């Protein structure tokens, strides 16, 4: 190989190297630009499901970010949502349909349907969440976003 050719060859593979290097930087950047499936950064609201499937006088516990949230459908159809972790120790609360109260079975703590602690050991009310129904879908969102 002549000196000239060798120089040319070096230039070509140098160009190839530069391209590969550039590509290895562009790859993560282009991937980064594609928005992820979960479009929003914040778990400030979640969809619980269709309203018609949620029976009156029932409740369920759903995951809201890192925290469990209890969503309640009263006999009259009203929807309510509260943090599901009892303020006494860390048990999950449940809805008592007969008395329309929220109850923690661990030490018999009671809350009313405003989340207020009314009897038993709970020292504080349950945090409230906002429930809305949008196009038949129940959506709950945290209060500090309101």
């Amino acid at each position, binding site marked *: 190989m002549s000196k000239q050719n060798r120089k040319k060859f070096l230039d070509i593979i140098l160009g190839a190297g530069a391209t590969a290097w550039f590509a290895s930087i562009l790859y993560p950047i282009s991937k980064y630009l594609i928005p992820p499936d979960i479009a929003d950064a914040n778990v400030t609201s979640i969809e619980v499901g269709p309203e018609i499937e949620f029976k009156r006088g029932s409740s369920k516990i759903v995951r809201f970010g890192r925290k469990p949230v209890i969503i309640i459908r009263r006999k009259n159809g009203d929807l309510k949502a509260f943090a599901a972790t009892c303020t006494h120790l860390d048990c999950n609360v449940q809805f008592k349909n007969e008395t329309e109260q929220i109850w923690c079975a661990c*030490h018999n703590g009671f809350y009313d349907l405003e989340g207020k602690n009314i009897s038993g050991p709970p020292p504080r009310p349950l945090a409230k969440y906002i429930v809305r129904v949008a196009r038949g879908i129940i959506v709950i969102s945290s209060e500090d976003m309101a």
Partner: protein
Amino acid sequence: MRHFSIFISSIAMSAIIFTTDLPQDACVSCHFEIDQDKDVDERSLTNILDDIHIQKGLGCSDCHGGNPEAFDDEDEAMWDVDSFLGTIERVDQPQVCGVCHSDPIYMRQYSAHIKTDQVGQYWTSQHGVSLKEGNQNVAVCTDCHSVHGIFPVNDPRSSVYALNVPETCNHCHGDSEVMEGSGLSNDQYDKYRISVHGVALLDDMDISAPACNDCHGNHGAIPPSVFSISDICGSCHVNNKDLFKDSHLSDIFLNADLNQCEGCHNYHDILTPTDEDLLWNDKDNCVECHQEIEDVANKMGVKFNNIITELKSKIDLANEKVASAENMGMEVSDLFFDLEEAHKILIQTRTSIHSFNLEHVSETASSGYKSADAAILGAEKAMEEFDFRKTGLLIFSIILTMFAILLYLKIKSLEKNK
């Protein structure tokens, strides 16, 4: 002359009298003069100014009788007055206090929801029954509520405020001389103090934790019997009570005159149960009864323990994996939801043992396995992601190094040309 002396002594008297709510009546002016050389404590008048009765405008004569208007005459003030009681005998205390406290119409003026059944309750208590039988060595009103420094129950200074109740009861119940002849031991406080309830109330200051009165009743103090103990414990430990009531053991305990909860958990020194209590060893409560049919109980307890141990080790593994993924700098905070959930179910599983039903226990535990597995899976995914990062870094570094070497060669060749 007498007027003058009252005047002088009034000035010389402890300043509290003038600056406070104490009614300036005949009782106060004379008794503070007579007793002025004794100090306030000795007259059991500590805190009298803050006493709820004084605060509500009552005076000495409202309990002790007498005529508070009669400033000049001892006889007119006390001895000639029919209602005068002087020092109230212990035996008479329930009646004297009950004059007001058992009168719903009178008491209503202070609070709409005030209770007036204390004296009635008291006569049903062991204290009241013994007092009626002529035993003076029992608690009467002032033993628990103090004499002149009586505060409402929700006042932290009150001797019957939740945090102070154990100490107050122990004043008598811990004193071997007082308890002599009662047939009771005097170690209840010491036992309670180390119990899960005592620690919660007195160390953690959790006033929702039960003090003596929460199990024994307030004025109707009595030890819970075989028939009531599971209801008393169950007023807080609902699930445990319900599960046990539905279990096959419930009737057996009743028929055998065994106290249900107490049978395994003791009383007063109710310690936090451990999973090892389920194993067939000296500490195991089952052993006491199940000596003959060792095999059955053996299987049951050990199986419960196995279920819990398995759940615990799964949770431990999940914790470990999540922690190590976190240490690698991976964002795994979402997994803490599953970890917390698994931990909640572990507690539920321990509770479910009160059903003494293997199926029920393992069913409860199974959702805990699921949560723990979800956390383990998530952590493993995070660690895989970390491996992906490392591989990516390696590829990037190789490309970069090659490019750098080529660049170096290019520079060398440029300089050689020169």
